[in-house]
């Protein structure tokens, strides 16, 4: 075993290992089973021997299009339509969310327009024929995805096409959860200057470990998500927002944690605006709430008719 001085201190932490040995800065060994407060500037080494794990036999089940392996809970071959979902493992089923999603036809998800003209993303409606079944009793609704690609919605004003690459909702466990989203905009005018801008409101500002269980007054935050995740408050004129090359791809995976102590529900709601030439935009609303340790609700992405004034004011600054 060896003992060396570390170059840094902040990023070291002690796991609870039975063989953990640490040394003090003078190089004297201290053996510890569990160290709670590890802040000094030294690091440790421990010998760990290889562990051999016995492999169990596999059993496969045939589902018509693919074989499923029970033991490792995975498909043996890729999804035939995996090219349409570049962000999802081709070995997954229902985007790893079999409780929240169904996949009766093996097709993709789609965009729906309601009676009031709101266009929203429905994870369970994959095609015109499924729409006919799922919305049989909903008057005024229509299926508005592109015929050849259910991910895409072509904006009626001709600005371009919005493509939902990924909208995943996960189970809430230990009070922690959130969705992951990937959206891309394809402008009709390729020379157009475009970029995403996002704001969100939440009573839990972040889910970093240090404030995992801390609640704050309802907070408003703005983000430029197409660059290096610039996060600010209500100052759209911050220079940092404009240092990043704009991108048409928006990715986000917000996490929040139910506050056990305060027993407050967690609310997180975002508005993501695609700014086009600093002149106009369209805005997608989406979010989630966590009501208890193991339950919550997701709000599917919807193209909003009326974004906040903040977004409307931001347009002219975001070129």
């Amino acid at each position, binding site marked *: 075993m060896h003992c060396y001085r570390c170059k*840094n201190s902040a990023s070291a932490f002690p796991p609870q290992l039975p063989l953990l040995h640490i040394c003090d800065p003078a190089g004297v060994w201290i053996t510890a089973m569990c160290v709670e407060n590890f802040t000094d500037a030294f690091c440790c080494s421990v*010998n760990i*021997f290889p562990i051999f794990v016995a492999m169990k036999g596999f059993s496969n089940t045939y589902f018509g299009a693919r074989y499923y392996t029970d033991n490792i809970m995975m498909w043996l071959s890729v999804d035939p339509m995996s090219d349409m979902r570049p962000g999802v493992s081709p070995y997954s089923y229902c985007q790893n969310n079999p409780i929240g999603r169904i996949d009766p036809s093996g097709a993709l998800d789609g965009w729906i327009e309601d009676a009031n003209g709101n266009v929203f993303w429905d994870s369970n409606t994959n095609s015109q024929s499924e729409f006919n079944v799922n919305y049989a009793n909903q008057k005024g609704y229509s299926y508005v995805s592109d015929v050849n690609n259910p991910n895409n919605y072509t904006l009626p004003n001709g600005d371009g096409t919005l493509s939902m690459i990924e909208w995943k909702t*996960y189970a809430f466990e230990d009070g922690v959860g959130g969705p992951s989203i990937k959206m891309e905009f394809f402008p009709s005018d390729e020379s157009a200057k475009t970029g995403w801008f996002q704001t969100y409101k939440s009573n839990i500002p972040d889910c970093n470990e240090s404030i995992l269980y801390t609640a704050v007054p309802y907070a408003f935050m703005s983000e430029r998500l197409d660059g*290096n995740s610039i996060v600010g408050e209500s100052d759209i004129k911050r220079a940092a927002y404009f240092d990043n090359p704009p991108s048409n791809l928006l990715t986000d995976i917000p*996490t929040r944690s139910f506050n056990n102590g305060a027993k407050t529900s967690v609310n997180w709601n975002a508005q993501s605006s695609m700014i086009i030439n600093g002149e106009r935009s369209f805005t997608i609303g989406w979010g989630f709430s966590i009501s208890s340790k193991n339950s919550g609700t997701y709000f599917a992405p919807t193209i909003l008719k009326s974004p906040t004034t903040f977004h409307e004011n931001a347009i002219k600054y975001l070129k």
Partner: protein
Amino acid sequence: MKKNLLILFIYMSFSLTINAQNVFYGYPSDDVKLGEEDKIIVSIPDHWDGKFNNTKDLEELLNYICSSDLTLKIKVIVFRGAKDFSIAYSEALCSDLKKRLFDRCCNKDGCQIVPIGKAEPLYHDKSNIGKYYKHNTRIEIIIE
């Protein structure tokens, strides 16, 4: 019988010696010679909704990876809620790390970044779930 036991003992001693692995909690100093399978464990630098914040810890991580001549496997292990969410979150961090490494040292070869998600725990006490998540969420840099 005794002879077989002796051979087994010698074999085990030999195996344990050649397979010995050093695990460092924090970055070792420059004079430390790292060997195959050695592992460096550090906390994940500050992050925000699947992306790293620009912090001193992140600078240290990027500098360490970029300045290393060794072939590295970097495991991003995230304990956060459900298993599939943890995997998705570690994938998001991996993709941000790849982007930042490309910006920093785009000609860097021999660096594999692997999202692990909620697996391979080091800290097993679930009675304090906050600590369980915090201590198990980490980056492992493995020399290959």
